[in-house]
């Protein structure tokens, strides 16, 4: 039986090869369907994992609080974010593990070799822990540096390149503005660009106390980063932080919050939700195109049965049984759908690779997904090939023979 089965397929392949126009037309629909399906799945997962990456850059269990300085609410004046807020949060919250304040301003910085304006950030040693940001060389400043207002700095790779070229920056001195010389004690690992296009490595970190003493901090910190003890406590921490901040800012009940709060995890959740909906929609569209491809197979096979009615009659007269006729046409549908689906996998892979390249996403099509899409496309084709095959098998031999 094995021998016969491979022969049936061989004959179907020969029929396909001998009618190239018909074969290509039939394959095209399914190829486009499968290709679109794979492309959509790949775009979806690519976009989603890109969202997850962004989320990880900003820290996984972090809540951000921003002051409303300069954006006064009616009903009261906004107070700056201060060390008092940091202390209040650490003292009164049960869910918050660390609080790291941050102030960032663009300043002119110069080294012995170059000048470069960059984002100078005053913060605390835990900044690199909250942001999960390892050091490339050297180390982060510590609590002692903070206490002593030490004139030290840690820089990002972009700043290192701009100010020192290929030289090792650790141990070198930079000057911020005209009056603050700092010794570089470490370089941060490169994090690359955010989706917004912001260069994460264009940064200088200095102790918050040093910043306050030498550069001044008239409007307080720009941002407080709260690290929660556990990702599951994120929501609780956000609820808990609001009254602590209101108390610390001595806001009356009628006053609105003079700070804003958000977490990358929440934003990522929202982005993921939206991207899931979009992916679902696109996959739905791709599924419809696959269905259309299947209907294409059915149409072409119906035409093929009609065209070859006399041939079917001849085969039948010779002694082919209805099931042998049916198997012949089903085998043709299998060959056409399988080839079409494989072509579609090629198309889908190409599309997803090109887009992943352009968007700098990582490879997103697993072999399993591709095999699944090929199998699905083939089953669609075969399912739609069944009706024409059945019709061929049910032809009356004398009618079929007489058919011109």
């Amino acid at each position, binding site marked *: 039986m094995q021998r016969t089965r491979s022969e049936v397929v061989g004959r179907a392949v020969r029929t396909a090869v001998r*009618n190239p126009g018909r074969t290509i037309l039939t394959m095209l629909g399914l190829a486009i369907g499968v290709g679109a399906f794979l492309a959509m799945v790949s775009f979806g997962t690519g976009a989603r994992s890109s969202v997850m990456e962004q989320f990880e850059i900003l820290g996984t269990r972090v809540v951000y609080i921003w002051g409303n300085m300069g954006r006064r609410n009616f009903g009261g004046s906004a107070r700056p974010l201060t060390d008092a807020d940091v202390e209040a949060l650490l003292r009164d919250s049960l869910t918050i593990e660390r609080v790291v304040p941050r102030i960032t301003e663009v300043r002119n910085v110069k080294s012995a070799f170059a000048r470069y304006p960059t984002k100078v950030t005053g913060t605390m040693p835990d900044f690199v822990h909250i942001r999960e940001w390892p050091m490339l060389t050297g180390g982060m400043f510590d609590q002692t540096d903070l206490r002593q207002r030490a004139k030290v700095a840690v820089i990002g790779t972009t700043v290192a390149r701009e100010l020192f070229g290929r030289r090792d920056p650790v141990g070198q001195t930079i000057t911020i503005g005209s009056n603050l010389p700092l010794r570089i004690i470490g370089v941060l690992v490169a994090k690359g660009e955010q989706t917004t296009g912001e260069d994460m490595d264009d940064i200088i970190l200095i102790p918050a106390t040093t910043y306050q003493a030498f550069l001044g901090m008239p409007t307080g910190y720009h941002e407080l980063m709260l690290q929660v003890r556990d990702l599951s406590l994120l929501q609780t921490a956000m609820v808990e932080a609001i009254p602590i901040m209101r108390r610390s800012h001595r806001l009356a009940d009628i006053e609105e919050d003079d700070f804003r709060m958000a977490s990358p995890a929440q934003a990522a959740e929202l982005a993921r939700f939206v991207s899931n909906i979009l992916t679902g929609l696109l996959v739905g569209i791709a599924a419809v195109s696959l269905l259309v491809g299947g209907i294409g197979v059915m149409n072409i096979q119906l035409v093929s049965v009609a065209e070859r009615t006399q041939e079917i009659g*001849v085969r*039948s007269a*010779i*002694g082919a*049984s209805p099931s042998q006729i049916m198997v012949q046409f089903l085998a043709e549908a299998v060959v056409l759908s399988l080839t079409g689906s494989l072509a579609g996998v090629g198309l889908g892979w190409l599309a997803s690779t090109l887009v992943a390249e352009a968007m700098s996403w990582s490879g997103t099509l697993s072999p399993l997904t591709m095999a699944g899409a090929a199998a699905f496309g083939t089953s669609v084709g075969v399912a739609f090939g069944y009706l024409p095959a059945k019709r061929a098998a049910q032809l009356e*031999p*004398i009618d079929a023979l007489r058919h011109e």
Partner: protein
Amino acid sequence: MSGFSIVEASGISKVFPNMTSPVLDGVSIEIESGEIIALMGPSGSGKSTLMNILGCLDGPTAGTYLLGGRDVSTLTARERAWVRLHYIGFVFQSFHLIGDHTVLENVTLPLYYAGLDRHEREARAVEVIERVGLGHRLGHRPAQLSGGEKQRVAIARAVSGQPRLLLADEPTGALDTRTGAEVMELLLEMHDARALTLVIVTHDPEIAAYCHRQIFLRDGKVVSEGRGHAAHA
């Protein structure tokens, strides 16, 4: 002649839906194994319908048809296909070769459906094709052949499965006189070599003259059965 009846049809009637009068009306014929029969009559006389029933392409509305002693008048489509595969060969006026198949592929077709393996199939087919004088045309497509050659391929295909009964519907109808005569000679040769029973539908008296016996149909009835001069016999 062996003297045993390969075809015993009695009271065969065929009525098609939407037709007022039956196409065949109580036809009874008997054909002995090895006979050569000319089935004759004007168009509309029912000779093609009778041939379809004899060839198990169609079943009768009424009557009994014994083929080789077995009742085949009430078979299912699948069973009739089996009978055609093993007992019957067809030759058609317009050849009915499969256009995208080579000569060899056309001739192996009945053997393929009978489930023979490729090697045996091709060996047998090549033998038959050489027998009809087309051993040099194995890989050709029907479109590359002349009419006479096409009919030779069709005859090779019809006999490759070693049928008992060969039905030829106007086998020379599409050919010129000389080619037609050659095809007729080939049919007779096959008859002699393979112990075939041959039923030829024709209205050409010259073809009929080759046959042992002529059966005339008119309006769905047998009107006469003549012993021809059987030039061949």
